[in-house]
């Protein structure tokens, strides 16, 4: 009964406000989530996030900010409309609509006051703006996600978990979820009036408060205003104010417009009509006046009370202003310092692009190679090496104008960038070492200049680093659609914490590229191999060094036609039909290993060595049975079986004809058999009687004749002949 009585005691206007909040909980939160659903969202995060697009990242540019806005465009629109209504009507969003602040308030109001903590006595304005500055400036810099203390995740997830959503449960029982739940309980449910989170931590509230204060100074805006002449100083409004925005100064209520939410509760409880939510009447002049005496003076409503302390000394200092000033000063200097520091991080510290960005910087060297010294700056900066300064690779260049040959590059060198997880300098040393031990190991990994491309193209049989790797963009334009689907996911998932174009370009792009290339289609992988191995003229010239004898020998036909014979195998044909169950070159030649480590099949360490084949074939769950000894015969299957290749291909490569294939066996066995059969039948025909020929019954002949041809077997015929004779006889 006490509860019903309590509800009855609620002022009528406040009941409507609570209904508003309940309705917006239904509109915004699971299980219905009508409003987020209307824009294709299922919560208030992602594109509806209102709380993080304005975060400051050191060195962020206008572009980064624009990107943030474009990611959370719904949130931006929502926030803008909140600000506009706030400017004209006070913080109606916070008090009447915001379900995230409203829900804890309702819960708190329904709980017994005995359990509650009183926060309204704390100096809320300095705390709020101090935290706001930390939230906007320091947390992104320190890499703390803005979402860690966000009620806009916690409250919707709480609803979600109670409506049976598994994601809600998962979030609530994560570390961040539990921390947020604690915040919700301490600053919400068990806070007096339940608005402590709004008072201290909500960034939207902090900005909204500033707009509220700004608008309060104008006459035409609706605000909670006090008529100082009517106020009796009874304190009832201050006691009921849920945000603690009303203070008694000299026994007169003063509204702090930075904190006031225009919830109108003070209006409802004031017995003297000394406080109201209104715009100032257009004409404030009393209508009847006599010698400066007002008859029926109209009330002078005040939204912002300007305190004029009369005492001198330290007490006369408005400490709130000092603290806010310090916060503002520190924030501005923080932005300035970080911006200046960020600008020092130049993309081209050595000024190479002063010349090399010029278009058409070409010459023809004495060997006739067209040398193009122009580096497409835009391409370079968005490429994999975009953050590596030129000098890190072109180490010999120390002075201007540099000698052409000093441009030499060694891929195994380390550069001055640090790999974030290990803190070590980036280097391609490990893959280079692996590569050097591989069958391609004689390929170049250092001494690269633009000019020696000619020598490499014409004389080198092994691939160098640069033959397969050019300075490619993070994302190949062809892969852009694939990337975009992955990327849109990133924007909402990774991107909700890691903001900024710089991040998206560098790390997001980098990481995603790794993901994508890990999912690189097998066909793409094969294309890389085929770049050389499908070129038969090129393959013909290759000589392989025997590891034991150190002698070089020309490659055999099987090597030259490897690409063709692979294409005819089931592995290749499946891939050709876009069936990812097919197997690429790399799948067998370096299964699960460093891709640079391809070995000759004669090397004992090679995955295609006889001894290792059973392991290779069973790798990644393909032919697992091969690991059993009894099935090891399976590994005799020739994956580069030349017998599948059309004959004319073989004739092309006949100059290195080696009959080491099944054809040889075929000829040795089949030809004599055919000759025997043909000549035998000819000879037989000479001596046999003319007449009906009967199929030889060598083995199972009777059964065959009887059941398949439908002719009576010879023996039966003989028998029937006998019986016929007997019958006749």
């Amino acid at each position, binding site marked *: 009964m006490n509860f019903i009585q309590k509800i009855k005691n609620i002022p009528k206007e406040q009941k409507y406000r609570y209904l508003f909040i309940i309705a917006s909980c239904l509109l915004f939160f699971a299980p219905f989530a009508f409003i987020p659903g209307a824009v294709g969202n299922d919560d208030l995060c992602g594109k509806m996030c209102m709380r993080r697009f304005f975060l400051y990242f050191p060195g962020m540019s206008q572009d980064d900010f624009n990107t943030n806005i474009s990611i959370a465009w719904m949130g931006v629109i929502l926030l803008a409309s909140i600000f506009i209504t706030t400017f004209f009507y006070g913080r109606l969003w916070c008090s009447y609509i915001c379900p995230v602040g409203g829900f804890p308030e309702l819960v708190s109001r329904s709980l017994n006051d005995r359990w509650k903590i009183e926060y309204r006595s704390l100096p809320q304005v300095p705390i709020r703006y101090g935290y706001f500055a930390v939230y906007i400036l320091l947390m992104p810099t320190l890499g703390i996600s803005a979402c860690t203390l966000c009620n806009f995740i916690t409250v919707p997830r709480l609803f979600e978990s109670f409506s049976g959503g598994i994601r809600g449960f998962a979030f609530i029982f994560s570390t961040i979820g539990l921390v947020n739940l604690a915040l919700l309980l301490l600053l919400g449910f068990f806070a007096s009036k339940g608005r402590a989170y709004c008072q201290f931590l909500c960034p939207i509230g902090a900005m909204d408060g500033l707009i509220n204060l700004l608008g309060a100074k104008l006459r035409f805006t609706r605000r909670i205003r006090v008529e100082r002449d009517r106020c009796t100083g009874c304190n009832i409004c201050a006691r009921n104010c849920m945000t603690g925005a009303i203070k008694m100064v000299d026994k007169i209520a003063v509204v702090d417009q930075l904190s006031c939410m225009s919830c109108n509760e003070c209006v409802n409880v004031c017995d003297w009509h000394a406080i109201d939510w209104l715009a100032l009447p257009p004409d404030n002049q009393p209508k009847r006046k006599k010698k400066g005496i007002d008859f029926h003076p109209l009330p002078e409503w005040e939204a912002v009370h300007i305190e004029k302390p009369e005492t001198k000394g330290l007490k006369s200092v408005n400490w709130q202003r000092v603290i806010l000033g310090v916060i503002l000063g520190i924030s501005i200097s923080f932005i300035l310092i970080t911006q200046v520091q960020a600008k020092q991080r130049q993309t081209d510290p050595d000024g190479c692009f*002063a010349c090399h960005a010029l278009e058409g910087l070409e010459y023809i060297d004495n060997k006739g190679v067209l040398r193009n010294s122009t580096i497409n700056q835009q391409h370079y900066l968005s490429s994999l090496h975009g953050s590596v300064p030129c000098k890190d690779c072109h180490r010999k260049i120390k*002075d201007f104008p540099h000698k052409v040959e000093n441009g030499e590059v060694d891929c195994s060198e380390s550069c001055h960038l640090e790999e974030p997880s290990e803190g070590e300098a980036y280097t391609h040393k490990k893959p280079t070492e692996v590569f050097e031990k591989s069958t391609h190991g004689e390929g170049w990994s250092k001494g690269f200049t633009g000019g020696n491309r000619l020598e490499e193209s014409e004389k080198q049989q092994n691939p160098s680093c640069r033959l397969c790797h*050019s300075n490619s963009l993070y994302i190949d334009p062809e892969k852009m659609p694939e990337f975009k689907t992955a990327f849109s996911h990133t924007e909402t998932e990774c991107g909700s914490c890691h903001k900024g174009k710089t991040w998206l370009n560098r790390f997001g792009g980098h990481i995603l590229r790794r993901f994508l290339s890990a999912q690189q289609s097998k066909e793409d992988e094969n294309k890389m191999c085929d770049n050389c191995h499908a070129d038969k003229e090129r393959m013909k010239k290759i000589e392989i060094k025997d590891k034991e004898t150190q002698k070089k020998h020309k490659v055999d036909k099987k090597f030259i036609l490897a690409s063709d014979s692979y294409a005819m195998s089931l592995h290749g044909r499946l891939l050709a039909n876009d069936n990812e169950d097919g197997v690429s070159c790399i799948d067998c030649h370096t299964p699960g290993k460093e891709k640079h480590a391809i070995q000759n099949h004669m090397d004992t360490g090679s995955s295609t060595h006889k001894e290792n084949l059973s392991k290779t074939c069973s790798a990644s769950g393909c032919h697992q049975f091969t690991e059993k000894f009894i099935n090891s015969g399976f590994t005799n299957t020739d994956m580069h079986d030349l017998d599948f290749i059309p004959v004319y291909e073989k004739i092309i490569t006949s100059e290195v004809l080696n009959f080491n294939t099944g054809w040889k066996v075929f000829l040795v066995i089949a030809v004599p058999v055919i000759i025997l059969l043909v000549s035998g039948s000819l000879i037989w025909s000479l001596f046999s009687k003319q007449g009906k020929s009967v199929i030889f019954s060598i083995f199972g002949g009777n059964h065959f004749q009887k059941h398949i041809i439908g002719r009576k077997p010879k023996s039966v015929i003989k028998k029937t002949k006998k019986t016929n004779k007997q019958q006749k006889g």
Partner: protein
Amino acid sequence: MHMKYLIYTLLLFLSVFAVKATTLYTQQVELSPVNDKKLQQAIKQIKEHSEVNLKDNLFVSPFHKQTKNQPTDKKPLCNVCHQKQPHSLDKRKRSFLNMHTRYISCETCHFIPKNTQLKYKWLNFNSDSNKTPAKRITPFYNDEVVIIFSDHKFVEKVKQSWDKATTLEKAKLKLRLHTPLNADGPECLDCHNNKNQLLDLESLKFSRKDIKKLQQHAIPRFFSRFKKEEQRLRMTDLLQ
């Protein structure tokens, strides 16, 4: 059938109308005297000349992404023999000079006859209107283009006589073709300076901002600091 011949004959006339018979350059070639000393030099050059085939699109592609120069469909006389990247002697400047060939025709720098006032205008080297225009600064004399393209009668005549010619005749022809030209073009600072540029940039419709940029460009001034080929600058020197 008749139609076909009619079109051919019309086309023949068209080409005659389109190509002016003489320009300032061809006139000067006809008039140019044959200097004996220079002739010997030309003979030597022709004898020592070895053809270098342009090697582009190598099997090993360049590491950095490179944008190809868009080909123009009009081929100037110079490019009949010279490559599109003609400068190769001065190792330091060659790339920068070759860069200018995208914006400036050869004759602008190498054909500066005495006592003749030339005007400079932009000329589109692409006759195909579908292609993006490739405009280059080109000398004009009496509102006529000084330079000639490979479809000019003069070029065909030169080509024919070159194929038949002996070494001596080739040398003479080469000498005559090059006599009106200056082997050494202007220095960087002759154009990239504040006062007396060779080209009137304003009449070439450069914006004031661009003019200032061209006049005060860092690279020409940087080159002007070098007297010797082997001279190098440490990075720390630049900062001082």
